[in-house]
């Protein structure tokens, strides 16, 4: 009966319910949208590592993120390739260049060179053609979302990157990075474009055999290459993300806007529930007079908060899902890991309950004696 009473009050007090709902929806939608962009950007930061298919990355010493390494020598590749725990080891070369568009202007791109035929660390999703196109020494990939920026190059169109002739061999799908437009090419082509010395790479990617102990193999690689940084892919991904989150101010910026959204939502919930309960003070006094205990009043108020939070969560997530679907194929980075919705829902529920505390205090103050004038 207490929950039913709460439900009836929520339905009857439409204006205050709408206000509190707005607060819940604001939290879910605004925070969810902020988080989806943040996670989208986080994915972009470590995209090369996360899609490399490698278990370990060997890079130069004292590395702070995957994009800030010095070149390493090919002799490290020779040292690890023969280890029993290593299934394969492949070099990757990352450099920068200027992509000449159709109208003669230039666009800065990040070129990633992979070794044929395995092309480890190469592109992983295609809109047109496939990784086979990179078997051609001249071929490069461009991403569908970067086509407009690069002057809408067509397949097989010949252009230049860093004054070196290239041919657009494939169009990737969603292969983008935080650090700039990604263009994949062969190792030799990137070496030409970036003008790196021969036998030098940005990283050596290592894949362990199926029966290798990852921790032990990592330790062995570190012992074998004390002058290098050896990371598992997960470690390097985490290091890179942490680096950018801390050093670019993205973390603080998103954290601040998330806190503001939570505060605004919490205040809206708090004020509207306070107003609602204040207008119901007489009803709570009646309930106390006819035998309700303080805890029964608390159950009604908390049930109201939970009902509003439940409806608000549904509406908020519906709006968020619509937004994420609409922006899924666009250039807006958005990604919502599966573990985020329950955390967001739980957090919103807690804020809703905290927001109802002032209202609860008012409700509990309703004196049964006040019903007698």
């Amino acid at each position, binding site marked *: *009966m207490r929950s039913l009473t709460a439900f*009836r009050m929520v339905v*009857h007090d439409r204006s205050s319910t709408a206000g509190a709902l707005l607060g819940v929806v604001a939290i879910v939608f605004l925070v969810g949208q902020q988080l989806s962009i943040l996670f989208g950007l986080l994915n972009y930061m470590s995209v090369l590592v996360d899609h490399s298919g490698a278990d370990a990355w060997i890079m130069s010493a004292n590395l702070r993120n995957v994009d800030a390494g010095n070149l390493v020598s090919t002799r490290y590749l020779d040292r690890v390739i023969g280890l029993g725990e290593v299934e394969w080891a492949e070099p990757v070369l990352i450099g920068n260049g200027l992509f000449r568009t159709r109208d003669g202007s230039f666009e800065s791109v990040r070129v990633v060179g992979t070794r044929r035929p395995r092309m480890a660390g190469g592109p992983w999703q295609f809109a047109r053609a496939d990784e086979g196109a990179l078997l051609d020494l001249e071929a490069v990939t461009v991403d569908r979302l970067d086509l407009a920026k690069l002057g809408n190059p067509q397949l097989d169109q010949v252009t230049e990157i860093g004054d070196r002739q290239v041919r657009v061999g494939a169009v990737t799908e969603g292969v983008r990075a935080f650090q700039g437009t990604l263009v994949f090419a062969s190792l030799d082509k990137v070496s030409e474009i970036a003008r790196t010395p021969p036998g030098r790479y940005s990283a050596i990617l290592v894949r362990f055999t199926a029966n290798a102990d990852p921790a032990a193999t990592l330790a062995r690689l570190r012992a074998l290459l004390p002058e290098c940084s050896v990371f598992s892919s997960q470690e390097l991904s985490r290091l890179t993300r942490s680096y950018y989150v801390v050093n670019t101010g993205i973390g603080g910026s998103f954290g601040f806007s998330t806190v503001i959204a939570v505060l605004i939502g919490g205040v809206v919930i708090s004020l509207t529930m306070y107003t609602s309960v204040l207008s119901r003070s007489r009803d709570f006094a*009646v309930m106390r*007079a*006819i*035998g*309700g205990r303080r805890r029964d009043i608390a159950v009604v108020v908390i049930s109201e908060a939970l009902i509003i939070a439940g409806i608000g969560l549904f509406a908020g997530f519906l709006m968020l899902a619509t937004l994420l679907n609409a922006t899924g194929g666009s250039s807006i980075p958005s990604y919502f890991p599966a573990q985020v919705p329950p955390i967001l829902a739980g957090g919103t529920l807690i804020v809703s309950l905290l927001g109802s505390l002032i209202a609860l205090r008012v409700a509990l103050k309703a004196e049964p*004696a006040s019903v007698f*004038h």
Partner: protein
Amino acid sequence: MTTLRLEKIARDFSDGRQMRRVLLPTDLKLALGELTVLSGPSGSGKTTLLSIMGLVLRPSEGRMFLDTLEVTTLSDERAASVRLKKYGFVFQQPMLIEGLSVMENVLLAYGVQGGRLRADLRPKAEGILRTLGLDGTASMQPRLLSGGMKQRASIARALIKDPAILLCDEPTSALDAESGQAVMSILKRIALEEGRVVVVVSHDARVFPYADRLLKIENGAVVSDTRETYTAGRESP
């Protein structure tokens, strides 16, 4: 047989600067089957006395017993449970909860402490509403009822628990004469036929003929206590 017994019950209120005694030490015993009217001018202490009888206000002095149970020392929680089991209230305004239907308002008096409602309560509530002339109003919202109907619905809310004690605070003051008479007739019948303690606070002289016992209060003290000679078998006025 339930009785309500007051021994030297008094109440003080503070106006922020000094204490003021609004109810002088009062001895009273109320028995089943009687409609008692508390009458007196505004500020005389009758509502204070009713609030203490109803366990919604603690006395400053004295003791009160419900049968053998001393209720003046009960905790808030325990007092609420006693109110739930033993008391019914009819207020000056019907004070039905908007948003709940008439039936839900009636059942709330039973389910305010939670728990599953017994299956027989709904038919019982319908029966009470029918008896009070509110047939067909169960699913209606209180705002759609007239003032008299609302007050009768509030009586139904008080009766659903079969309370031993029914306390009514100016139940007719917001009603027209006809509705007021109807309500008082119902209260009189409840006292006599259902054998309950019914206490009505009123300064409306039209209520007095329904009283089996008339207590007059002035300046916080019971100044007269007269019993009517009506018997249980006699028709009410």
